[in-house]
């Protein structure tokens, strides 16, 4: 009887998606809910929580360090979008070119950095951007007669290191995304365009770019997410969560600082909820703007 029930075509799909429902409820809905409720409480591990209404949020609105963190994350996100979408797209188009030698080799080499863990990559970059005269970047600058710089102590130079790290790790991955997108564009489009006498640039803007739109939206979505939620990169680059003048402090870093380092779980939860709101607003409006919802059936 039970077997008959479980094996019916009506019930089977629920059995199939059951693991997702469970994981979703236990590890997403419940924590999200408790995060939301925690954000209205004063929570200290090991002690009873107190309801304090909107206090965490009002405190957050007057917290300069928090705004610093938000600004840092936002700038990082924008910079990674500006670099990690156009360049990988361009590389993908070029590498897909029929004149390309050694395509497979380059594809793999571009991808290698993504294989390293953030811990390893971050440490390598921290040492490369070290402020000593002999560390890699400074010794290269020295060849051009530029004085050694304290990269990780300045806002701009610190971000150069941070964005360099992101660019290094993700260029290859995004390029592969675009390459797969390119494969779906039928060759006849280009042939037809060639017959009409279109230039390479016209082909790129009129055919490639529009047809890559789904891929672009996908890459954009995950990049927004990854940019706003960045933390470990900064933690490894500054060897801790306390960068000079908080130049590397991100929203998640602040959540970690308040929640884990300072045991202000309620306040940290409020930071998390604000991050969630920012991510959702940006991503949903981005998707709405690009008409993704209309296509979704």
């Amino acid at each position, binding site marked *: 009887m039970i077997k008959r029930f479980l094996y019916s075509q009506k019930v089977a799909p629920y059995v199939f998606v059951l693991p997702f429902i469970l994981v979703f409820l236990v590890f997403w809905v419940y924590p999200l809910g408790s995060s939301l409720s925690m954000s209205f409480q004063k929570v*200290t*591990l*090991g*002690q009873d929580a107190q309801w304090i209404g909107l206090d965490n949020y009002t*405190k957050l609105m*007057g*917290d*300069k*360090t928090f705004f610093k963190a938000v600004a840092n994350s936002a700038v990082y996100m924008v910079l990674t979008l500006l670099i990690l979408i156009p360049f990988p797209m361009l590389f993908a188009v070029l590498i897909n070119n029929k004149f390309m030698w050694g395509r497979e080799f380059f594809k793999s080499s571009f991808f290698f950095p993504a294989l390293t863990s953030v811990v390893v990559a971050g440490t390598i970059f921290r040492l490369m951007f*070290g*402020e*000593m005269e002999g560390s890699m970047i400074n010794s290269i600058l020295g060849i051009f007669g530029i004085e050694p710089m*304290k990269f990780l*102590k*300045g806002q701009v130079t610190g971000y150069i290191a941070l964005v360099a790290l992101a660019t290094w790790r993700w260029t290859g991955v995004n390029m592969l995304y675009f390459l797969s997108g390119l494969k779906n564009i039928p060759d006849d489009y280009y042939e037809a365009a060639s017959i009409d006498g279109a230039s390479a640039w016209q082909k790129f803007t009129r055919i490639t770019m529009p047809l890559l739109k789904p891929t672009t939206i996908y890459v954009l979505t995950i990049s927004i997410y990854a940019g706003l939620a960045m933390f470990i990169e900064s933690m490894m680059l500054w060897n*801790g*969560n*306390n*960068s*000079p*003048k*908080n130049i590397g402090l991100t929203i998640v870093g602040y959540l970690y600082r308040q929640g*884990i*380092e*300072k*045991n202000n779980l309620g306040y940290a939860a409020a930071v998390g909820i604000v991050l969630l709101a920012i991510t959702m607003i940006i991503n949903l409006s981005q998707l709405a703007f690009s008409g993704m919802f209309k296509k979704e059936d």
Partner: protein
Amino acid sequence: MKRKWLVMMLVLTMTTLLFGCGSKSSSSSKGESSVLDAGAGENATELSYWTFVELHGQHFEKMLEKWNAANPDRQIKLNVTVMPYDDMHNKLSIAVQTGVGAPDIADIELGKFPDFLKGTPQLVPLNDVIDPYRDTIVKSRIDLYSKDGQNYGIPTHVGASVAFYNTEILKEAGVDYKSIVTWEDFKQAGIKVHEKTGKYMGTADTSATWQVSQLLAQQGTDLTDDNGNPIVNSEAMVKALKLLKDLQDNDVIATIAGGQPDTEEAYGEFNSGNYATAFMPLWQMSRYTNYMADLSGKIAIAPIPVMEKGMPRSVGGGGTGTVVTKTAKDVQLAKDFLAFAKLSLDANKEIWNTLGFDPVNMDVWDMKDVTHNPENKFVKYFINNPFDVLNEIKNEIKLIKSTPASPTINNVLCTVTLNEIFEDGKDIKKALDDAQAQIEQELK
């Protein structure tokens, strides 16, 4: 085909590794826990111990041997875990608050200690095991780790601040460190050093408050007022930073990679002879012997310069309170062992012998056979004997209070304010006012 071959290779490498390296036992090692047997028998109780300084484990190893020999019926195996500073304190904080996963014994650094005393401390009061030794040790070092009359941590050292001079550089510039008494002397010497050698006399610390504490102690003030409220924009503080800033402007001191002398980058800079002086608590000695081998035989220890003659010349800096957690397997055993390992006379001698710290039992400071043992690696490394200096300044060692506000004060000063002042040249008064506001906001 090629792929299969590669996978085979991968599997092969892994199995070789597994058999080659899997079965290694370890006695003392890096970045992992190691179980110290120290002659313990079958029935020994295994206690776990977390620390952020590898060397502390070595001290416990020595004391453990003595303990196990002396207490055959209460033997201990110690499971030592070394973790990076931040990570260890974060994990420990969570573990003691939730009551899960905490070790039996742990080191907590002074700067983080107030966080562990918030609310109801989840640590065991140690008064009863401290009492037998109370008269022999410096009281203020115990007070640092106490709340409402309960002592929760056992100190390791006094941490008297001294100056470490690289005499090779000073000689090159024709400077005698012994003639440096005031900051003005230091400044003139530093100007000479920079002119003659192009090197810096000292560091402008951006990621630690050692120097700030030293200069406040000279003026008889503190980072907090009598009620424990932050006063980082006080007159004394402005004066202290103006003094340092003036030294920086005259190329006497400069910022250093890592932000302060006790970082790995700075060890490298000092070892390469780029900076002549470090004003640090005495335990910096062990950093010299461990990480700056090239400077052996070149470093002299002296009292720190003062603003005006007669001001106190030292302040206790840093410190580690070793605690027993409420969830410890055998609380009494852990407490007894801890007192034995850190407070007994033997322990205090070993703290000097192994760690190179100035022990909290000041009687040891006068035991010539201990302090002037020619075989001691610290005695060998330094030009003069540190205890000659320590005994000279013995009655001048001041204290910067540890209050619930201290972790926040330190965090703001070390990440923001000092960087603004020394790296960006921000106006000192303005930077300190901002810091005060920020600290008050965070403490709300």
